[in-house]
Protein backbone atom coordinates (compact mmCIF):
# COMPACT_ATOMS: atom_id res chain seq x y z
CA UNK A 1 0.00 0.00 0.00
CA UNK A 2 2.69 2.44 1.08
CA UNK A 3 4.79 1.71 -1.99
CA UNK A 4 2.04 3.02 -4.25
CA UNK A 5 2.20 6.36 -2.52
CA UNK A 6 5.68 7.17 -3.77
CA UNK A 7 5.03 7.37 -7.52
CA UNK A 8 1.84 9.34 -6.96
CA UNK A 9 3.55 11.59 -4.47
CA UNK A 10 6.55 12.11 -6.71
CA UNK A 11 4.31 12.99 -9.62
CA UNK A 12 2.47 15.55 -7.56
CA UNK A 13 5.67 17.04 -6.21
CA UNK A 14 7.31 17.14 -9.63
CA UNK A 15 4.33 18.71 -11.29
CA UNK A 16 4.55 21.62 -8.90
CA UNK A 17 8.31 21.80 -8.72
CA UNK A 18 8.42 22.38 -12.47
CA UNK A 19 7.04 25.87 -11.92
CA UNK A 20 10.45 27.50 -11.43
CA UNK A 21 9.31 31.05 -10.98
CA UNK A 22 7.14 30.20 -8.02
CA UNK A 23 9.71 28.14 -6.25
CA UNK A 24 13.35 28.10 -5.43
CA UNK A 25 16.36 28.34 -7.69
CA UNK A 26 19.22 25.86 -7.84
CA UNK A 27 22.38 26.60 -5.94
CA UNK A 28 25.63 27.06 -7.86
CA UNK A 29 28.99 25.64 -6.88
CA UNK A 30 31.35 28.62 -7.00
CA UNK A 31 34.36 26.90 -5.44
CA UNK A 32 35.46 23.29 -5.06
CA UNK A 33 38.75 21.84 -3.95
CA UNK A 34 39.87 18.27 -3.25
CA UNK A 35 37.39 15.40 -3.18
CA UNK A 36 33.88 16.79 -3.57
CA UNK A 37 31.12 14.46 -4.80
CA UNK A 38 27.53 15.16 -5.69
CA UNK A 39 24.86 12.50 -5.25
CA UNK A 40 22.07 13.42 -7.63
CA UNK A 41 18.37 12.62 -7.46
CA UNK A 42 18.95 9.37 -9.33
CA UNK A 43 21.43 8.29 -6.71
CA UNK A 44 24.42 8.64 -9.04
CA UNK A 45 27.70 10.04 -7.72
CA UNK A 46 29.63 12.67 -9.67
CA UNK A 47 32.74 14.74 -9.12
CA UNK A 48 31.71 18.31 -8.45
CA UNK A 49 33.18 21.08 -10.57
CA UNK A 50 32.94 24.82 -10.26
CA UNK A 51 29.85 25.99 -12.12
CA UNK A 52 27.82 22.87 -11.35
CA UNK A 53 24.34 23.35 -9.96
CA UNK A 54 22.94 21.67 -6.87
CA UNK A 55 19.25 20.94 -7.19
CA UNK A 56 16.79 20.16 -4.46
CA UNK A 57 17.13 16.58 -3.32
CA UNK A 58 20.84 16.48 -4.12
CA UNK A 59 23.68 15.91 -1.68
CA UNK A 60 27.25 17.15 -1.60
CA UNK A 61 29.76 14.89 0.13
CA UNK A 62 33.26 16.20 0.80
CA UNK A 63 36.23 13.98 1.59
CA UNK A 64 38.95 14.60 4.14
CA UNK A 65 40.66 17.00 1.73
CA UNK A 66 37.52 18.37 0.09
CA UNK A 67 35.68 21.64 0.52
CA UNK A 68 33.17 23.59 -1.50
CA UNK A 69 31.35 26.86 -1.57
CA UNK A 70 27.91 27.27 -3.05
CA UNK A 71 25.77 30.30 -3.67
CA UNK A 72 22.06 30.50 -3.98
CA UNK A 73 21.03 33.53 -5.96
CA UNK A 74 22.75 36.53 -4.48
CA UNK A 75 21.36 35.97 -1.01
CA UNK A 76 23.22 33.08 0.52
CA UNK A 77 26.71 31.65 0.59
CA UNK A 78 27.40 28.25 2.09
CA UNK A 79 30.90 27.04 2.86
CA UNK A 80 31.04 23.27 3.13
CA UNK A 81 33.99 22.02 5.15
CA UNK A 82 35.93 18.76 4.62
CA UNK A 83 34.29 15.47 5.61
CA UNK A 84 30.78 16.91 5.41
CA UNK A 85 27.45 15.70 4.10
CA UNK A 86 25.22 18.54 2.95
CA UNK A 87 21.78 18.12 1.35
CA UNK A 88 19.62 20.75 -0.30
CA UNK A 89 15.97 19.88 0.34
CA UNK A 90 12.52 21.40 0.46
CA UNK A 91 9.68 21.09 2.92
CA UNK A 92 6.30 22.67 3.48
CA UNK A 93 5.97 24.66 6.68
CA UNK A 94 2.73 26.42 7.62
CA UNK A 95 1.40 26.21 4.09
CA UNK A 96 4.53 27.51 2.40
CA UNK A 97 7.36 25.80 0.64
CA UNK A 98 10.71 26.39 2.31
CA UNK A 99 14.29 25.65 1.34
CA UNK A 100 16.01 23.31 3.75
CA UNK A 101 19.79 23.24 4.02
CA UNK A 102 20.71 20.07 5.85
CA UNK A 103 24.08 19.19 7.33
CA UNK A 104 24.04 15.53 8.40
CA UNK A 105 27.73 15.39 9.22
CA UNK A 106 30.65 17.78 9.33
CA UNK A 107 30.27 21.52 9.21
CA UNK A 108 28.73 24.20 7.03
CA UNK A 109 29.13 27.96 7.46
CA UNK A 110 26.15 30.02 6.31
CA UNK A 111 26.01 33.64 5.33
CA UNK A 112 22.70 35.19 4.38
CA UNK A 113 23.00 38.74 3.14
CA UNK A 114 19.26 39.16 2.78
CA UNK A 115 16.32 36.84 2.69
CA UNK A 116 13.63 37.15 0.05
CA UNK A 117 10.35 35.61 1.15
CA UNK A 118 10.46 32.93 3.80
CA UNK A 119 13.85 32.29 5.32
CA UNK A 120 15.36 28.83 4.76
CA UNK A 121 15.49 26.20 7.45
CA UNK A 122 18.83 24.83 8.53
CA UNK A 123 18.82 21.30 9.86
CA UNK A 124 21.17 18.70 11.22
CA UNK A 125 20.16 15.23 12.35
CA UNK A 126 19.20 16.65 15.72
CA UNK A 127 18.02 20.26 15.25
CA UNK A 128 16.07 22.65 13.09
CA UNK A 129 17.19 26.27 12.96
CA UNK A 130 15.44 29.31 11.55
CA UNK A 131 17.58 32.26 10.50
CA UNK A 132 17.10 36.00 10.17
CA UNK A 133 19.75 37.81 8.07
CA UNK A 134 22.64 36.09 9.64
CA UNK A 135 26.08 34.49 9.54
CA UNK A 136 26.64 31.32 11.47
CA UNK A 137 28.14 27.83 11.43
CA UNK A 138 26.55 24.47 11.99
CA UNK A 139 28.58 21.49 13.16
CA UNK A 140 27.17 17.95 13.02
CA UNK A 141 29.10 15.43 15.08
CA UNK A 142 29.84 11.76 14.74
CA UNK A 143 27.28 10.85 17.42
CA UNK A 144 24.47 12.91 15.86
CA UNK A 145 24.92 15.87 18.16
CA UNK A 146 24.98 19.42 16.80
CA UNK A 147 26.73 22.64 17.63
CA UNK A 148 25.54 26.00 16.32
CA UNK A 149 27.63 29.13 16.59
CA UNK A 150 26.37 32.56 15.51
CA UNK A 151 28.68 35.26 14.16
CA UNK A 152 25.99 37.83 13.43
CA UNK A 153 22.20 38.10 13.25
CA UNK A 154 19.84 35.71 14.99
CA UNK A 155 19.22 31.98 14.87
CA UNK A 156 16.33 30.13 16.51
CA UNK A 157 17.39 26.58 17.32
CA UNK A 158 14.63 24.04 17.91
CA UNK A 159 14.85 20.48 19.14
CA UNK A 160 12.28 18.26 20.86
CA UNK A 161 9.79 21.13 20.87
CA UNK A 162 12.05 23.57 22.72
CA UNK A 163 13.60 26.64 21.10
CA UNK A 164 16.66 28.64 22.04
CA UNK A 165 17.43 31.92 20.27
CA UNK A 166 21.06 32.67 19.64
CA UNK A 167 22.47 36.09 18.83
CA UNK A 168 25.97 37.29 17.93
CA UNK A 169 28.80 35.31 19.53
CA UNK A 170 26.52 32.76 21.11
CA UNK A 171 26.49 29.03 20.63
CA UNK A 172 24.53 25.99 21.75
CA UNK A 173 25.09 22.24 21.68
CA UNK A 174 22.24 19.80 21.10
CA UNK A 175 22.30 16.06 21.67
CA UNK A 176 20.08 13.95 19.40
CA UNK A 177 16.63 13.44 20.86
CA UNK A 178 17.24 16.09 23.54
CA UNK A 179 16.22 19.77 23.85
CA UNK A 180 18.93 22.38 23.20
CA UNK A 181 21.51 22.70 25.96
CA UNK A 182 22.55 25.90 27.71
CA UNK A 183 23.65 28.79 25.51
CA UNK A 184 27.29 29.81 25.83
CA UNK A 185 29.44 32.71 24.74
CA UNK A 186 31.82 32.03 21.89
CA UNK A 187 34.07 34.26 19.83
CA UNK A 188 34.21 34.10 16.05
CA UNK A 189 36.53 31.36 14.85
CA UNK A 190 37.01 29.99 18.36
CA UNK A 191 35.32 26.65 17.75
CA UNK A 192 37.39 24.02 16.01
CA UNK A 193 35.26 21.29 14.46
CA UNK A 194 37.93 18.59 14.70
CA UNK A 195 38.47 19.16 18.40
CA UNK A 196 34.77 19.26 19.14
CA UNK A 197 34.08 16.16 17.03
CA UNK A 198 36.96 14.27 18.68
CA UNK A 199 35.28 14.96 22.00
CA UNK A 200 32.00 13.61 20.65
CA UNK A 201 33.82 10.54 19.35
CA UNK A 202 35.44 9.88 22.73
CA UNK A 203 32.08 10.16 24.43
CA UNK A 204 30.58 7.72 21.92
CA UNK A 205 33.30 5.15 22.55
CA UNK A 206 33.03 5.61 26.32
CA UNK A 207 29.27 5.02 26.34
CA UNK A 208 28.02 3.54 23.07
CA UNK A 209 24.70 2.48 24.57
CA UNK A 210 23.74 5.99 25.61
CA UNK A 211 24.82 7.33 22.22
CA UNK A 212 22.72 4.81 20.26
CA UNK A 213 19.74 5.35 22.55
CA UNK A 214 19.85 9.06 21.71
CA UNK A 215 20.00 8.26 18.02
CA UNK A 216 17.00 5.99 18.51
CA UNK A 217 15.05 8.84 20.07
CA UNK A 218 15.76 11.07 17.11
CA UNK A 219 14.83 8.36 14.61
CA UNK A 220 11.57 7.96 16.49
CA UNK A 221 10.84 11.61 15.82
CA UNK A 222 11.19 11.10 12.05
CA UNK A 223 9.09 7.92 12.19
CA UNK A 224 6.35 9.64 14.15
CA UNK A 225 6.23 12.58 11.73
CA UNK A 226 5.88 10.19 8.79
CA UNK A 227 3.23 8.15 10.60
CA UNK A 228 1.19 11.25 11.40
CA UNK A 229 1.35 12.59 7.82
CA UNK A 230 0.46 9.33 6.08
CA UNK A 231 -3.26 9.13 6.88
CA UNK A 232 -3.71 12.83 6.06
CA UNK A 233 -1.93 12.31 2.75
CA UNK A 234 -4.06 9.26 1.96
CA UNK A 235 -7.23 11.15 2.76
CA UNK A 236 -6.20 14.07 0.52
CA UNK A 237 -5.12 11.80 -2.30
CA UNK A 238 -8.41 9.90 -2.26
CA UNK A 239 -10.36 13.16 -2.19
CA UNK A 240 -8.26 14.56 -5.03
CA UNK A 241 -8.90 11.51 -7.20
CA UNK A 242 -12.61 11.84 -6.54
CA UNK A 243 -12.61 15.58 -7.27
CA UNK A 244 -10.79 15.00 -10.55
CA UNK A 245 -13.39 12.46 -11.58
CA UNK A 246 -16.15 14.87 -10.56
CA UNK A 247 -14.71 17.53 -12.88
CA UNK A 248 -15.56 15.45 -15.91
CA UNK A 249 -19.13 14.92 -14.77
CA UNK A 250 -19.43 18.59 -13.92
CA UNK A 251 -18.36 19.65 -17.41
CA UNK A 252 -20.86 17.29 -19.00
CA UNK A 253 -23.67 18.55 -16.79
CA UNK A 254 -22.87 22.26 -16.31
CA UNK A 255 -20.35 23.17 -18.99
CA UNK A 256 -16.68 24.12 -19.21
CA UNK A 257 -16.91 27.30 -17.10
CA UNK A 258 -18.24 25.33 -14.15
CA UNK A 259 -15.36 22.88 -14.53
CA UNK A 260 -12.77 25.68 -14.64
CA UNK A 261 -14.26 27.36 -11.59
CA UNK A 262 -14.35 24.11 -9.63
CA UNK A 263 -10.77 23.35 -10.58
CA UNK A 264 -9.59 26.78 -9.45
CA UNK A 265 -11.54 26.84 -6.18
CA UNK A 266 -11.28 23.23 -5.07
CA UNK A 267 -9.05 20.95 -7.11
CA UNK A 268 -5.97 23.12 -7.48
CA UNK A 269 -5.73 23.98 -3.75
CA UNK A 270 -6.21 20.28 -3.04
CA UNK A 271 -3.41 19.43 -5.47
CA UNK A 272 -1.10 21.88 -3.76
CA UNK A 273 -1.94 20.58 -0.29
CA UNK A 274 -1.56 16.95 -1.36
CA UNK A 275 1.77 17.64 -3.01
CA UNK A 276 3.00 19.44 0.11
CA UNK A 277 2.02 16.47 2.25
CA UNK A 278 3.88 14.15 -0.12
CA UNK A 279 6.87 16.47 -0.04
CA UNK A 280 6.96 16.43 3.73
CA UNK A 281 6.72 12.65 3.92
CA UNK A 282 9.70 12.54 1.55
CA UNK A 283 11.48 15.18 3.59
CA UNK A 284 11.18 13.21 6.83
CA UNK A 285 12.04 9.93 5.12
CA UNK A 286 15.15 11.41 3.53
CA UNK A 287 16.13 13.10 6.79
CA UNK A 288 15.79 9.77 8.57
CA UNK A 289 17.87 8.06 5.87
CA UNK A 290 20.57 10.68 6.16
CA UNK A 291 20.63 10.30 9.93
CA UNK A 292 20.65 6.51 9.66
CA UNK A 293 23.43 6.47 7.04
CA UNK A 294 25.75 9.21 8.26
CA UNK A 295 25.24 9.01 12.00
CA UNK A 296 24.08 5.51 12.96
CA UNK A 297 26.09 3.88 10.16
CA UNK A 298 29.29 5.71 11.05
CA UNK A 299 28.78 4.96 14.72
CA UNK A 300 28.68 1.29 13.74
CA UNK A 301 31.88 1.64 11.70
CA UNK A 302 33.73 3.39 14.50
CA UNK A 303 32.65 0.93 17.16
CA UNK A 304 33.25 -2.11 14.97
CA UNK A 305 36.86 -0.95 14.54
CA UNK A 306 37.19 -0.17 18.20
CA UNK A 307 35.87 -3.54 19.34
CA UNK A 308 37.30 -5.75 16.57
CA UNK A 309 39.45 -7.63 19.03
CA UNK A 310 36.86 -7.66 21.77
CA UNK A 311 33.45 -8.10 20.12
CA UNK A 312 31.99 -9.69 23.22
CA UNK A 313 32.45 -6.57 25.37
CA UNK A 314 29.15 -5.90 27.18
CA UNK A 315 28.96 -2.25 26.11
CA UNK A 316 29.47 -3.24 22.47
CA UNK A 317 26.87 -6.02 22.73
CA UNK A 318 24.49 -3.51 24.28
CA UNK A 319 25.09 -1.12 21.39
CA UNK A 320 24.52 -3.89 18.82
CA UNK A 321 21.26 -4.94 20.41
CA UNK A 322 19.77 -1.45 20.11
CA UNK A 323 21.37 -0.92 16.70
CA UNK A 324 19.67 -4.06 15.32
CA UNK A 325 16.34 -2.92 16.72
CA UNK A 326 16.76 0.47 15.04
CA UNK A 327 17.55 -1.15 11.69
CA UNK A 328 14.41 -3.23 12.00
CA UNK A 329 12.32 -0.18 12.78
CA UNK A 330 13.87 1.77 9.93
CA UNK A 331 13.07 -1.02 7.47
CA UNK A 332 9.44 -1.07 8.57
CA UNK A 333 8.70 2.62 8.98
CA UNK A 334 11.04 4.57 6.69
CA UNK A 335 12.25 2.32 3.85
CA UNK A 336 8.75 2.01 2.30
CA UNK A 337 8.88 5.77 1.63
CA UNK A 338 12.22 5.70 -0.13
CA UNK A 339 13.11 4.79 -3.70
CA UNK A 340 16.15 3.01 -5.13
CA UNK A 341 17.83 6.28 -6.06
CA UNK A 342 17.80 7.40 -2.43
CA UNK A 343 20.13 4.65 -1.28
Amino acid at each position, binding site marked *: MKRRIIPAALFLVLSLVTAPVLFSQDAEVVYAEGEVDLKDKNGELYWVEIGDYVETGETIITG*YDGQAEIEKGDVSVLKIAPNTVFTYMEAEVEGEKRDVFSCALGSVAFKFSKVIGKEPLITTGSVVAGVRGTEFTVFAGVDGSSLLVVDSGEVAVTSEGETVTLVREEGVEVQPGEPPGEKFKVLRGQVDYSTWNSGRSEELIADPVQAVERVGKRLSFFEEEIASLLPVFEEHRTRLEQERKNLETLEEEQGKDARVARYKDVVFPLEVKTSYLAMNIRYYALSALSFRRFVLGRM*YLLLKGEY*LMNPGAPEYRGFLEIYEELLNRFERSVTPHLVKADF
Partner: protein
Amino acid sequence: MIKKLIPLTLLCLVVFFSCSTVRFVQKEGTVLKVIDLINSGDAGRLAGISGSPFLLDGEIIMMPGDMKQFWEKAAEKGFVLTRPEVLGITPVDGNTYTLFSPYEEVKMFFEKYVPSDAVVVRVSSSAGDVLLLLYGRNEGYPYILGFKGI
Protein backbone atom coordinates in the same frame (compact mmCIF):
# COMPACT_ATOMS: atom_id res chain seq x y z
CA MET B 1 46.96 -9.50 -49.78
CA ILE B 2 46.30 -6.21 -48.01
CA LYS B 3 42.72 -6.20 -49.28
CA LYS B 4 42.23 -9.63 -47.75
CA LEU B 5 43.65 -8.47 -44.45
CA ILE B 6 41.35 -5.47 -44.06
CA PRO B 7 38.12 -7.48 -43.50
CA LEU B 8 40.00 -9.82 -41.18
CA THR B 9 41.39 -6.88 -39.18
CA LEU B 10 37.96 -5.28 -39.01
CA LEU B 11 36.47 -8.54 -37.82
CA CYS B 12 39.15 -8.79 -35.13
CA LEU B 13 38.47 -5.20 -34.03
CA VAL B 14 34.73 -5.84 -33.86
CA VAL B 15 35.30 -8.96 -31.79
CA PHE B 16 37.82 -7.11 -29.58
CA PHE B 17 35.59 -4.13 -28.87
CA SER B 18 32.50 -6.24 -28.36
CA CYS B 19 34.40 -8.06 -25.63
CA SER B 20 36.10 -4.97 -24.24
CA THR B 21 34.72 -5.50 -20.73
CA VAL B 22 37.24 -7.88 -19.25
CA ARG B 23 35.81 -10.16 -16.61
CA PHE B 24 38.39 -11.06 -14.01
CA VAL B 25 38.08 -14.41 -12.35
CA GLN B 26 38.87 -14.30 -8.65
CA LYS B 27 41.14 -17.14 -7.67
CA GLU B 28 42.26 -18.37 -4.29
CA GLY B 29 45.69 -16.79 -4.74
CA THR B 30 44.32 -13.26 -5.24
CA VAL B 31 41.98 -13.69 -2.27
CA LEU B 32 44.89 -14.69 -0.07
CA LYS B 33 46.78 -11.60 -1.25
CA VAL B 34 43.95 -9.50 0.18
CA ILE B 35 44.15 -11.43 3.45
CA ASP B 36 47.90 -10.78 3.48
CA LEU B 37 47.22 -7.06 3.20
CA ILE B 38 44.86 -7.26 6.19
CA ASN B 39 47.36 -9.31 8.18
CA SER B 40 50.22 -6.97 7.38
CA GLY B 41 48.12 -3.97 8.43
CA ASP B 42 48.63 -2.22 5.09
CA ALA B 43 45.74 0.19 5.59
CA GLY B 44 46.85 2.47 2.77
CA ARG B 45 46.80 -0.30 0.16
CA LEU B 46 43.57 -1.73 1.56
CA ALA B 47 41.93 1.70 1.37
CA GLY B 48 43.19 2.01 -2.21
CA ILE B 49 41.41 -1.16 -3.30
CA SER B 50 38.29 -0.62 -1.17
CA GLY B 51 35.28 0.52 -3.15
CA SER B 52 33.24 3.57 -2.33
CA PRO B 53 30.52 3.08 -1.29
CA PHE B 54 31.61 0.05 0.71
CA LEU B 55 29.51 -2.59 2.43
CA LEU B 56 30.75 -3.27 5.95
CA ASP B 57 28.56 -6.06 7.35
CA GLY B 58 25.15 -4.51 6.71
CA GLU B 59 26.34 -0.89 6.64
CA ILE B 60 26.75 1.11 3.45
CA ILE B 61 29.79 3.30 4.04
CA MET B 62 29.48 6.38 1.87
CA MET B 63 32.06 8.81 3.22
CA PRO B 64 35.34 8.92 1.34
CA GLY B 65 38.09 8.09 3.79
CA ASP B 66 35.97 6.14 6.25
CA MET B 67 37.26 2.76 5.11
CA LYS B 68 40.84 3.99 5.39
CA GLN B 69 40.06 4.94 8.96
CA PHE B 70 38.55 1.50 9.55
CA TRP B 71 41.54 -0.39 8.10
CA GLU B 72 43.89 1.80 10.14
CA LYS B 73 41.94 1.02 13.28
CA ALA B 74 41.99 -2.69 12.43
CA ALA B 75 45.79 -2.56 12.03
CA GLU B 76 46.16 -0.55 15.25
CA LYS B 77 44.12 -3.13 17.14
CA GLY B 78 46.23 -5.97 15.71
CA PHE B 79 43.40 -7.55 13.74
CA VAL B 80 44.67 -10.53 11.74
CA LEU B 81 43.15 -13.52 10.01
CA THR B 82 45.64 -16.29 10.73
CA ARG B 83 45.48 -19.72 9.06
CA PRO B 84 43.16 -18.42 6.33
CA GLU B 85 41.43 -20.93 4.14
CA VAL B 86 39.23 -20.08 1.18
CA LEU B 87 36.04 -22.08 1.66
CA GLY B 88 34.23 -20.92 -1.44
CA ILE B 89 34.10 -18.34 -4.22
CA THR B 90 30.55 -17.70 -5.41
CA PRO B 91 29.33 -15.31 -8.12
CA VAL B 92 26.82 -12.75 -6.86
CA ASP B 93 23.15 -13.22 -7.68
CA GLY B 94 19.86 -11.66 -6.70
CA ASN B 95 19.96 -13.15 -3.21
CA THR B 96 23.60 -12.55 -2.28
CA TYR B 97 22.65 -9.46 -0.27
CA THR B 98 21.04 -11.69 2.36
CA LEU B 99 24.49 -12.96 3.31
CA PHE B 100 25.26 -9.44 4.51
CA SER B 101 21.89 -8.16 5.70
CA PRO B 102 18.21 -8.91 5.25
CA TYR B 103 17.31 -5.29 4.61
CA GLU B 104 16.12 -3.53 1.46
CA GLU B 105 18.91 -0.95 1.53
CA VAL B 106 21.56 -3.66 1.18
CA LYS B 107 19.58 -5.22 -1.64
CA MET B 108 19.65 -1.78 -3.30
CA PHE B 109 23.41 -1.58 -2.68
CA PHE B 110 23.91 -4.79 -4.64
CA GLU B 111 21.60 -3.64 -7.43
CA LYS B 112 23.23 -0.24 -7.75
CA TYR B 113 26.87 -0.68 -6.94
CA VAL B 114 27.91 -4.33 -7.32
CA PRO B 115 28.96 -5.42 -10.84
CA SER B 116 27.52 -8.67 -12.13
CA ASP B 117 30.98 -10.29 -12.23
CA ALA B 118 31.62 -9.70 -8.53
CA VAL B 119 32.03 -12.69 -6.25
CA VAL B 120 31.54 -13.45 -2.60
CA VAL B 121 34.43 -15.26 -0.98
CA ARG B 122 34.06 -17.11 2.29
CA VAL B 123 37.30 -17.39 4.23
CA SER B 124 37.78 -19.29 7.47
CA SER B 125 40.46 -18.17 9.88
CA SER B 126 41.49 -18.42 13.49
CA ALA B 127 39.41 -15.29 14.08
CA GLY B 128 36.30 -16.87 12.56
CA ASP B 129 34.72 -16.83 9.12
CA VAL B 130 34.70 -13.67 7.03
CA LEU B 131 33.03 -12.77 3.75
CA LEU B 132 34.73 -10.65 1.12
CA LEU B 133 32.87 -9.08 -1.77
CA LEU B 134 35.40 -8.78 -4.61
CA TYR B 135 35.49 -7.80 -8.24
CA GLY B 136 37.90 -6.76 -11.00
CA ARG B 137 41.58 -6.16 -10.49
CA ASN B 138 43.86 -3.24 -9.71
CA GLU B 139 47.62 -3.64 -9.66
CA GLY B 140 47.39 -7.32 -8.90
CA TYR B 141 44.66 -7.03 -6.26
CA PRO B 142 40.91 -7.36 -6.60
CA TYR B 143 38.73 -4.45 -5.55
CA ILE B 144 37.02 -5.03 -2.21
CA LEU B 145 33.40 -3.88 -2.24
CA GLY B 146 32.37 -5.45 1.02
CA PHE B 147 33.58 -7.18 4.14
CA LYS B 148 31.64 -9.07 6.75
CA GLY B 149 32.74 -10.96 9.75
CA ILE B 150 33.90 -11.20 13.32
